[in-house]
């Protein structure tokens, strides 16, 4: 996304500047938060960053497959996910490992997914998190449907779809928005606009200036927020959740952010992103660094605490990998596991054939 385009855009919510300073509005919001919550933001963002950096290395070592890094988008994920409750539904795309961790997906599961094992898709009991959606935008109508069901069942849960700016070009996005608006469902459509869909910049993705403005066509609020400002994201998400729970319908949130690295480990972002733009986002707009500055200035974080926390995160990530790598691989007949509620004669015959070919896994 062009820098000028972003700077020109004033109609967005920002509480915390890249320099780590609170705006007037931001100060008020800050004062309304508990110390624990303030610490949560830091803890989750740094934990997720560590997980992410390790995953890129694990991919290079051949220990996991192609991986989609999220570094740079921690504030958007942490701010939005922490505003949700256990009863809420999450329909992510493939870049929301941070959201998944906060939702309660155990780390070994997340690693298993990237190790090409379908077992990694299954959340623990009580976690309303769907597997990463690989085809773009296809999960957005699901979130609207789940929200619609909550409304019909008179439950208080909301449903959130996570997606990128590229997804807003797909028909599924528009159909989902339309249903959400028509049926006024408690859905939140959360777009992390990181400026690119692989190599295609937002300016080529959409003729509209912002994603948020698209909501107008469907007659519900579209809110643009500094996606690298965890406080602002948390604030707008909390409000959207409250509105949804109160029966006031859907919200489209556009969190303006940037992925610092490649689209996936199979991509080379230097081919399509100007160096100066990358430097600006990587060096000046980092979501974690600006928050750390604030925490330190407010006396809520010391270097020792940071070092301790990092040590703990490192251990957690190490343990997660260890457990994932130690988990016994599913035997080949697992190909057929859960394809149908009960395998039929055809599946049973093929399982037998597979075993005869040595695929019993024994």
């Amino acid at each position, binding site marked *: 996304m062009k820098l000028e385009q972003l700077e020109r855009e004033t109609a967005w919510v920002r509480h915390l500047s890249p320099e780590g300073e609170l705006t007037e509005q931001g100060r008020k919001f800050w004062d309304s938060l508990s110390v624990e919550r303030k610490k949560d933001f830091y803890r989750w963002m740094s934990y997720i960053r560590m997980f992410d950096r390790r995953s890129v290395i694990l991919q290079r070592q051949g220990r996991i*497959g*192609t991986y989609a890094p999220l570094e740079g988008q921690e504030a958007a994920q942490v701010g939005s996910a922490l505003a949700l409750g256990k009863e809420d539904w999450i329909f992510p795309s*493939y870049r929301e490992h941070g959201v998944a961790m906060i939702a309660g997906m155990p780390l070994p599961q997340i690693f298993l*997914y990237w*190790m*090409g*094992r*379908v077992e990694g898709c299954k959340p623990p009991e009580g976690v309303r998190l769907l597997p*990463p959606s*690989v*085809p*773009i935008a*296809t999960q957005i109508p699901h979130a609207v449907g789940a929200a619609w069901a909550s409304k019909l069942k008179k439950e208080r849960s909301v449903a959130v779809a996570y997606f990128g700016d*590229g*997804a807003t*070009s*797909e*028909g*599924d996005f528009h159909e989902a928005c339309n249903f959400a608006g028509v049926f006024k469902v408690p859905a939140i459509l959360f777009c992390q606009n990181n400026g690119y*869909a*692989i*190599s*295609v910049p937002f300016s*080529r*993705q*959409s003729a509209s200036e912002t994603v948020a403005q698209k909501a107008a066509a469907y007659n519900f609020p579209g809110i643009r927020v500094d996606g690298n400002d965890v406080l602002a994201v948390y604030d707008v998400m909390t409000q959207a959740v409250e509105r949804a729970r109160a029966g006031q319908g859907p919200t489209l949130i556009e969190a303006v952010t940037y992925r610092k690295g490649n689209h996936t480990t*199979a*991509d080379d972002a230097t*081919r*399509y992103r100007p160096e100066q733009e990358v430097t600006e986002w990587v060096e000046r707009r980092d979501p974690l660094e600006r928050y750390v500055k604030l925490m330190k200035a407010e006396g809520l974080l010391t270097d020792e605490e940071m070092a301790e926390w990092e040590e703990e995160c490192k251990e957690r990530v190490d343990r997660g990998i260890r457990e994932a790598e130690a988990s016994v*691989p*599913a035997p*080949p007949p*697992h*190909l*057929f596991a859960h*394809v149908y509620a009960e395998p039929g004669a*055809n*599946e049973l015959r*093929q399982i037998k054939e*597979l075993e005869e*070919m040595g*695929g019993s896994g024994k």
Partner: protein
Amino acid sequence: MKKLTMVQAISDALRTALATDPTVVVLGEDVGKNGGVFRATEGLWQEFGDERVIDTPLAEAGIIGTSIGMAVNGLKPVPEIQFMGFIYPAFEQIVTHAARLRTRTQGAFPATLTIRAPYGGGIRAPELHCDSTESLFVHIPGLKVVTPSTPYDAKGLLLAAIKDPDPVIFLEPMKLYRSVKQEVPDGWYEVPIGKARKVRDGEDVTLIAWGTMVPVAEAAANEWAAKGVSCDVLDLRSLYPLDEEAIIESVKKTGRVVIVHEAPKTAGLAGELTALINEHAFLYLEAPITRVTGYDAPVPMYALEDWFRPDAKRVSKAIQQVVSF
């Protein structure tokens, strides 16, 4: 002649088409500046500019739908779908419009376009990137479906597809994109649609395969050659229309058939081929036609993919079965 990989040969075909025919346009997600996620359009945007090689929004129905409109209005679009697993949003446009426009307009406005899509597994890609659902398209009247297994064929078939007056689905086996290099002629040449390639001559068993399964069939044929059983190996190249003549001729010679495909078995193309052989060469058969295919399960994530895709061992076993029947 240059030695090229398949993906380079495809790129060369696109360059040749763009340079030769001013009505050709290449469009799709990331095909421009980035040169395509597999680099199949590498350098074309720089060479031919943004109006011939076009980065589009991320919208398959839009890409194919607008390509149909372009075709109606005199261009020859070559849209790229990034992976076959993501062609489904465009399915409606392909099936209800691209395939039928010639019939519905009684020849006035045919949809002359060539849809390129990488497909198949074996490259440890993420979920859903490895579908091999060619039979969905073969089933639709009005479409042609082709898939090469060598660099030479890739260029020649793609140029034939671009020139072809009908909508062609051009499937590119990802596994073979960079597996071998082969001499590929400069300039325009065509490998005709509807003609199979004889990979190797044999007397005892007919092996029928396409795309990524061709080298697998060849490996099994090699194994059996050492044991004195010779296989006639056919690379179909064109899944619709089929080279019925080449298939029947081979079956009449050998009397034994093994069909190999990566797609699931049920309602896969092997079923159709079996019926075709029954109709035209039943009395020549010495053994039941045997299918070696992917399983009737969703294409798995990569940890189990080697068990899903047929390998030479499974093909060998099938050969054993038909020769000892």
